[in-house]
């Protein structure tokens, strides 16, 4: 069975700047894939290439088995796309937009549309121009969900929204998660962590890792060691240790390839016998911050 999204050395260059650098990505059907990364990491560029909104400099991408460069017209009856900077026709009223869109999609579900209108509390008789940013995002999401898309692509959907609206959007999204593949880029790592099944980390156009959340949370651990003395840290530390800091006899770091036996052996090799060692799981936010700081230091 082909993947919902697959890229092969996908690259986008703007003159001398490489916005996306040979990205290999695979998103399996039914997964909720979160693409995370700092501002300018290339998340939006990646999504625009996937949606055929711009053309790649090199490489290849497939969406639902179709090359992304051939996505047009009917292909979009299976893809729901929401972006924070999409220009929705503001002259329309909410009801007219939904009525107008309804006829474009053979699988549009009027009952689901009504459910989403109620769930998102959309004011049908109001012009889109008069809606708040949060309300516009809810409308965009409602219009992207109402036709049971096989794939939902969301580009920074939670940016600048208040917590209540975020919660509503996530709820709406989660209710569809069983029938669709969701691909989402976001800074809101806390929210994403609650429902993403897979995560990819993009840094300066490069995909540093792409894996499921379970293995990611197993792979990253915060390690705290209490040594017998407060001697300085050795200069040669394993590459997999991130953000290594010491305070007196206490040393803390993030192990990015955690395996308890291997970690214990490495600690013994670097520090000799220690008084105590603790391994704590990390939140996605902490993992993201550790990776971001590592790249900043580099």
């Amino acid at each position: 069975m082909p993947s919902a999204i697959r890229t092969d050395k996908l690259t986008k260059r703007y003159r001398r700047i490489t916005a996306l650098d040979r990205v290999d990505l695979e998103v399996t059907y039914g997964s909720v894939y979160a693409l995370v990364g700092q501002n300018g990491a290339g998340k939006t560029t990646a999504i625009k290439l996937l949606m055929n909104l711009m053309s790649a400099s090199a490489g290849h991408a497939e969406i639902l088995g179709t090359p992304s460069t051939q996505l047009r017209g009917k292909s979009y009856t299976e893809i729901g796309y929401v972006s924070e900077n999409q220009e929705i026709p503001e002259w329309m009223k909410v009801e007219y937009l939904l009525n107008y869109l309804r006829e474009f999609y053979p699988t549009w579900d009027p009952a689901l549309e009504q459910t989403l209108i109620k769930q998102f509390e959309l004011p049908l008789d109001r012009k889109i121009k008069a809606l708040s940013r949060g309300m516009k995002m809810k409308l965009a999401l409602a219009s992207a969900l109402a036709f049971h898309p096989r794939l939902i692509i969301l580009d920074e959907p939670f940016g600048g929204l208040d917590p209540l609206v975020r919660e509503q959007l996530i709820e709406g999204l989660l209710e569809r998660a069983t029938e669709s593949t969701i691909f989402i880029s976001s800074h809101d790592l806390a929210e994403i962590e609650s429902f993403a099944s897979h995560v990819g980390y993009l840094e300066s156009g490069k995909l540093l890792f792409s894996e499921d959340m379970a293995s990611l949370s197993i792979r990253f651990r915060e390690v705290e060691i209490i040594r017998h003395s407060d001697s300085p840290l050795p200069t040669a530390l394993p590459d997999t240790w991130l953000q290594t800091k010491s305070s007196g006899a206490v040393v803390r770091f993030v192990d990015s390839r955690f395996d308890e036996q291997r970690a214990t052996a490495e600690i013994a090799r670097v520090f000799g016998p220690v008084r105590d060692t603790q391994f704590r799981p990390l939140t996605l936010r902490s993992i993201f911050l550790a990776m971001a700081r590592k790249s900043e230091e580099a």
Partner: protein
Amino acid sequence: MDQILRIFKKDIRRHWPEILLSLALLALFTNRALHPWNSLDSYSFSRSFYFFVVTGEYIAPVLVIFWLFIVIRVVQGESLVGDHQWWTTKPYVWWQLLLAKLLFVLVFICVPLFHVQLFLLNYFKFPVLRNLLPLFSMQLSLLLILICFCVLLASLTKNLVQILLVVGVAALVAIAVAMWNRGTYGGSSVMEATPTLVDYLGDLLIYGGLAGAVTWQFARRRRWITIAASILLISFVAAISAAFTSSKVAERRYTPVDRSAAPLIVSVKPIEPSNDNKDFSRETSPEVQLTIPVTVSGVPAGTVIQLNAVKIHADSPEKSKWSSGWLYESQDFWPEDQEKTLAYSVDRKEYQKIRNTLLQLQVDLAISEYQLVDAHTLPIVSQRFSDQALGDCQISSFDNSRLHCLYPTRIPEYVIRFDPQQSGCFGDASKERGQADMVSYAWKSRDEMGFPNPELSPLSDFDPWFQPVSLISSRNETTERRNVRLCPGTVLTLSRPVLRRKLHIRLDPFNARLEDLAVTPLRLSFR
């Protein structure tokens, strides 16, 4: 088809105020077209802004500009530029989107205009069926020249501001090219032509390219590729046209004939040595105007000879470096004509070099011979009168040496002869030279370019203007004469000019210095 109608209905819902305004402007245009004689009467009057407004001359350009505005708005409703567009990630089928936009143009611009055109033809009792083809041609011209170009421009830009910038830059480039083009500078232009095949090919490429660029941009939304391809195509057509355009191509269209076989006799009058100072080294004009007085005779009755171009050169090529080659010159030779003056321009610096040198000069003329057929008489009445060949006409109330006429879809070709000696309605005595009781003619030959013709009105208004022939006896006389005047009872002779042949004739060589032919430029002095 569903999608086309869906987008079309959405556009109507969005643009209904503009649609209403467009229809209102069209109604104003129709109302003005119903009273063509008002504007015709003001034709020879001032073309000031006041008359532009009062006579409603502004309506047609305003209507066209407003249509272009609507087309831009409708196309940019689903902008084809940028990566933030909402519709580009929706199940729009590009060709249905394009057809929806064209349907809008058809329904709210072409069809209403077509109805107005049919109504106007019917109102003025011109045959509708016979004029259907020209009407379709006008609609097609409007679509190709204005709408298609506008759709392309709108599909390559994001908003009106970008369009205004593009138009501004294009206007600057056009001005720069016009300034650079020496042929259009200085008032006299070189007779040049492009082979017909190249002309047709160029038109085909431009119109085909325009339609192709619009289609490609809708299909692929690759703005810079579309722009680059359009510029390349225009440059290619311009380069091909420039490469094949020459005086030789134009000259080949005129068959050389001996003087004995020419349909007229033109002889250079004796050139009198000039005593004036003809040193123009301090003049600023890049050209010096030469004039050659000639006598004309032998034009057969029922014929008009049109002078198209003149070439004056020395008898040997090495002495002719000052010559400008073939230059356009427009004069008519009628059977009653006796003398004319040929005009020619040469480069001022070249003139300065040899102005005193006695040269044996040769004059070549490129002429078109027209046969006048279907002659019939037309008595003028005090009211408006009709003629099958001329349309509906009346004497101008501002200038009684003119008629004002209306004809469906185009200006017809005509020759009108007027002999004041036989009409008996002279005007008041005046001291004006010329405009005497001489035979006068008004005429127009067929337009070679019938397409494109992006007019709005199905009625062409024109004003046959009678100009007297030039008799030797009238030259330099300032006697009391009477102005030519048309009046009720005047009998005009109408005929239709048919192009018989284009000829190249060479006059007898003559000796002269260029400064004997040069015209001293007018100078303004300030004290």
